[in-house]
């Protein structure tokens, strides 16, 4: 067992710093050492701020020595997807267009983590403007999967998935509009939490689709994610779409058993057209949940293909609207694939977009009716494990959209419905690539997913596996 502090979970390291068993400097230096070792191989970081991080760690240690504890993450070093505005820091959004963009405000989610005492390690790579599921980036290079650097990380939170998997940061913010947290979590073997639309403020987070964007973490464990979501969730005057309901204690849900819970397994769509190893991991996950006390029931869901289509219509239209000015003024500064996908939104009539938005309520009602009696639904995150970077580099070719749609087919319906979904490491392929499963819950029932996911992680050790440096 290694004694590298960087290998600890977020919750464990926060406790060690608060209890003065480790200093923030020791922990931060451990992360920086791993970053120096891994960054040339995986390209997970956009910016590494070693000196500033160590100075902030020293300040955290000095504060603690004086009896000042800033919060539950006092002195814990983190890095996040480079789309969360941090006043005075360059936020590229993975793009050439915003290569030098310096915001004057800090995003609410990031500020709440800062208020909890975190130290900034730098910023993490991402797909250009968060619009792509593979992890390719024509401006800053593809991010690589620490389990096999020839393979994709998934996107768009590519750096977040890669960095957490390689233990370069204890956790990282991602964003999920069509699967961008769950996909890297699945491909990189980490835990990822796509939260309910309206739970966490999007203020100061780069927009892609105002109806579908969600903020959430990637981390080693469900417990880590529960802590982070609890710190970030809640009403924000800067984002009027946030819910005003009190934030539950998600950490309290990490100890519950699965006895008395019902977990639904879809009879179609999410179990169709699966890679054989993903199918095997799904079966093994269901068996584990059952052995831990859950009752497994079959659920017949409404036609999910219509949800994926509606999601694509909403996302393409809203993204095109956000980017229209740059599509006119700076089309040459986009990568080919992102420009192609933005152009798709130009061809959707207003009536069609509004129909897709109007159908959201009835579609959610139909889904909830279909899962009545269950606490969550289990499904694969994607039908396949991580492809190679070379074979998935489809650019703006004629079949690019079809390839993208296949990768995201199991995540987009959940974005359209606005539901929470927890991606958990659930196994490995014979070649050593991670496979994740998603637990899909009811709106604002993140605590229910935490309970199931934490119980699964007590019974398995997939989330504790660490890729080896060459």
């Amino acid at each position, binding site marked *: 067992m290694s004694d590298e502090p960087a290998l600890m979970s977020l919750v464990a390291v926060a406790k060690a710093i608060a209890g003065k068993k480790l200093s923030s400097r020791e922990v931060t230096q451990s992360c920086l050492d791993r970053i120096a070792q891994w960054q040339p191989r995986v390209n997970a970081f956009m910016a590494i701020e070693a000196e500033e991080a160590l100075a902030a760690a020293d300040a955290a240690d000095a504060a603690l020595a004086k009896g000042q504890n800033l919060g539950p993450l006092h002195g814990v070093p983190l890095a996040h997807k480079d789309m969360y505005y941090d006043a005075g820091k360059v936020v590229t959004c993975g793009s050439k267009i915003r290569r030098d963009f310096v915001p004057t405000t800090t995003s609410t989610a990031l500020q709440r983590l800062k208020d909890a005492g975190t130290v900034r390690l730098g910023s993490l790579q991402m797909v250009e403007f968060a619009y792509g599921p593979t992890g390719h980036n024509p401006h800053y290079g593809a991010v690589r999967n620490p389990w096999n650097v020839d393979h994709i990380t998934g996107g768009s939170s590519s750096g977040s998935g890669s960095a957490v998997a390689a233990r370069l940061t204890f956790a990282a913010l991602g964003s999920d509009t069509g699967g961008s947290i769950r996909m890297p979590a699945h491909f990189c073997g980490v835990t990822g939490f796509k939260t*309910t*639309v*309206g739970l966490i403020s999007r203020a100061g987070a780069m927009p892609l689709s105002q*109806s579908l964007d969600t903020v959430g973490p990637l981390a080693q464990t469900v417990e880590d994610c529960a802590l982070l979501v609890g710190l970030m969730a809640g009403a924000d005057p800067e984002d009027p779409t946030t*819910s005003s309901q009190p934030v539950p204690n998600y950490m309290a849900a990490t100890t519950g058993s699965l006895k008395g819970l*019902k977990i639904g397994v879809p009879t179609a769509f999410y179990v169709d057209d699966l890679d054989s190893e993903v199918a095997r991991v799904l079966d093994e996950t269901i068996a584990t949940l059952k052995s831990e006390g859950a009752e497994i029931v079959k659920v017949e869901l409404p*036609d999910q*293909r*219509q949800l*994926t*289509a*509606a999601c*694509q*219509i909403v996302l*393409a239209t809203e993204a*095109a609207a956000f980017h*229209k000015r740059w*599509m*006119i003024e700076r089309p040459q500064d986009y990568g080919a694939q992102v420009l*192609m*996908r933005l*152009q*798709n939104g*130009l*061809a*959707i*009539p207003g009536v*069609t977009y*509004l*129909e*897709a*938005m*109007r*159908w*959201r*309520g*009835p579609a*959610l*009602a139909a889904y*909830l009716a279909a899962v*009545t*009696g*269950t*606490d969550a639904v289990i499904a694969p995150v994607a039908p396949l494990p991580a492809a190679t970077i070379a074979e998935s580099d489809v650019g*703006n070719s*004629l079949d*690019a*959209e*079809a390839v993208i*749609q296949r990768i995201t087919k199991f995540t987009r319906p959940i974005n359209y419905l*606005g539901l929470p979904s927890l991606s958990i490491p659930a196994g490995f392929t014979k070649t050593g690539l991670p496979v994740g499963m998603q637990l899909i819950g*009811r*709106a*604002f029932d993140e605590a229910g997913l935490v309970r199931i996911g934490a119980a699964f992680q007590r019974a398995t050790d997939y989330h504790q596996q660490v890729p080896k440096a060459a």
Partner: protein
Amino acid sequence: MTRPDPKQVKAMTEIAGVPQDAEVSARIANSIGPAFDGFAPVSGTLPMDIEPASYLLVQRAKVSK
């Protein structure tokens, strides 16, 4: 509802103020076409008294398991 063909896409991009040539229009039609096909069973079937904000009523309703 039918998927737009390349000529229609070209006209729509012009109306949107971001005109595209025939080649790009063909690529857009190819890319976005399946979404139109997938949504076709829903399109034109929704009752009048539903608006986008109706979603929030469903999402935030107290639902028991």
